[in-house]
């Protein structure tokens, strides 16, 4: 009968705090527990570090010690499903929202959503920006803009963009806005991944463009949520970032 599947299952259960598998030996029998603890510690610490790499602002906000303890719990309930650890943590924002010790800090989930989106943008596929002459030649009433795959729009309940920005190393001290914000996350040509808080009209325009609507239709959608909305600043921001990659008529 194959013994290895059973061995692996027992070892894994022991890593999670269950009893040690049979047959472990060490130079002194009484040191088996201590030596097994090296593996328990390696798993917990390496996963905690991987999570901290993805969510540095959350770590800064709750503190390293609290983060490490919380990461152990998160790693138990939402283990990575693949060895590609930069894809891990999609459920972390939801976990934070339901973590009782953090109930007084409801904005943390939104900050984690920003950090997760930044990670995805950092690793998104490479697509070169559109030649500005091509964009200039396009007819606004017919053109559909294609945005870079890193471009992500997040509707946030809290003013998490402001919180995120305040907690950057050397970041600007912004006055904390209150209430909902919409975050625009994208990767610039030089690989920086800034986070912008965008106005309701900008958000409506971007959503419409991402849905494949013509630019004129998207501009009208922006007007409906924000009368007098001028898309100029947003389009300049997107062009400077290299976030418009194609224009199709």
């Amino acid at each position: 009968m194959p013994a290895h599947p059973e061995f692996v299952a027992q070892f894994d259960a022991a890593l999670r705090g269950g009893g040690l598998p049979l047959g472990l030996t060490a130079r002194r029998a009484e040191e088996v527990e201590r030596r097994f603890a090296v593996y328990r510690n390696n798993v917990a610490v390496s996963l905690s570090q991987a999570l901290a790499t993805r969510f540095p602002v959350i770590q800064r906000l709750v503190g390293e010690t609290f983060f490490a303890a919380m990461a152990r719990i998160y790693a138990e309930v939402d283990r990575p499903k693949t060895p590609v650890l930069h894809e891990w943590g999609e459920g972390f924002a939801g976990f934070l929202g339901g973590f009782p010790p953090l109930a007084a800090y409801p904005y943390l989930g939104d900050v984690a959503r920003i950090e997760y989106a930044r990670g995805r943008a950092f690793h998104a596929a490479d697509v070169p920006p559109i030649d500005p002459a091509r964009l200039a030649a396009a007819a606004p009433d017919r053109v559909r803009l294609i945005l870079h795959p890193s471009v992500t729009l997040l509707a946030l309940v809290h003013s998490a963009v402001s919180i995120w920005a305040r907690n950057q190393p050397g970041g600007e001290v912004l006055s904390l806005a209150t209430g909902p914000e919409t975050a625009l996350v994208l990767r610039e040509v030089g690989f920086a991944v800034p986070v912008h808080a965008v106005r309701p009209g900008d958000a409506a325009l971007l959503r419409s463009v991402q849905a494949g609507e013509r630019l004129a239709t998207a501009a009208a959608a922006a007007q409906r949520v924000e009368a007098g909305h001028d898309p100029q600043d947003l389009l300049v921001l997107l062009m400077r970032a290299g976030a418009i990659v194609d224009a199709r008529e």
Partner: protein
Amino acid sequence: MSSTLPSLAGVGFKPQHFAAIRADAAGVGFFEVHAENYMGAGGLPHAQLAAIRADHPLSIHGVGLSIGGARGVDADHLDRLRRLCDRYQPDSFSEHLAWSSHGVEGLGAEYLNDLLPLPYTEETLRLVCDHVDQVQSALGRRMLLENPATYLCFEQSTIPETAFLAEVARRTGCGLLLDVNNVFVSCTNHGTDPRAWLAAFPLHQVGEIHLGGHDAEVLPSGPLLIDSHAAPVADPVWALYAEVIARAGPRPTLVEWDNDLPDWSVLADEARRAGAILARGGQSLARAS
């Protein structure tokens, strides 16, 4: 295709060192990266790796295949690896004699992010050989399999680690990656002699050597060494390495440093120290022939 790494000293590439490496990589014969850090679609990691690859030989070192696991190697992960190797055409691909994923029936796999140990038995030998075969046929290349650092042994084991690795190499045609620090760490932890381990190890199968730093604690039975990759290579490990090179001749040698990263100059110095031992090994072999 087999390993085409040069028999020089290489360094594990870390993004923090990119600018310093571009300014001065003198004395570095190749770079090695962890495969899983380059499995995103694009962005800075690939831009940096492409620049490194353009100027240096490259070794891709996997940490997530779970070759010592109970189930077959994950097809999706193997596919990610194949695409990475197709893209960068590395001079060598290596993985570990360890397991790191645990498949739960009906729930898919969970990844533990550590190199976990296995008993050495006829059953695990067959499993490991099957998994190495799977990897080599998917990648269309010969891989190197690395000896682990271990903290415990198993009553179930019936095959010595050196014989287990030699037999995997014999049955699958894979090469071996000799981690001299892991030999020292494991033998110290188990109260055995690293020189006896090395004497029993098939040095002729070694396509690459790893050197790294370890941490130490003291237990009542003696030191407990932990393979941390967060410190300089220890003196006893340098001594064992020099003996290996004197016996086997120069082999591609990587200095690993993954945590608490030092400045690039510290790592480059460690590589130069390995390079000097490699150069002496080459001279003594030339005299002997």
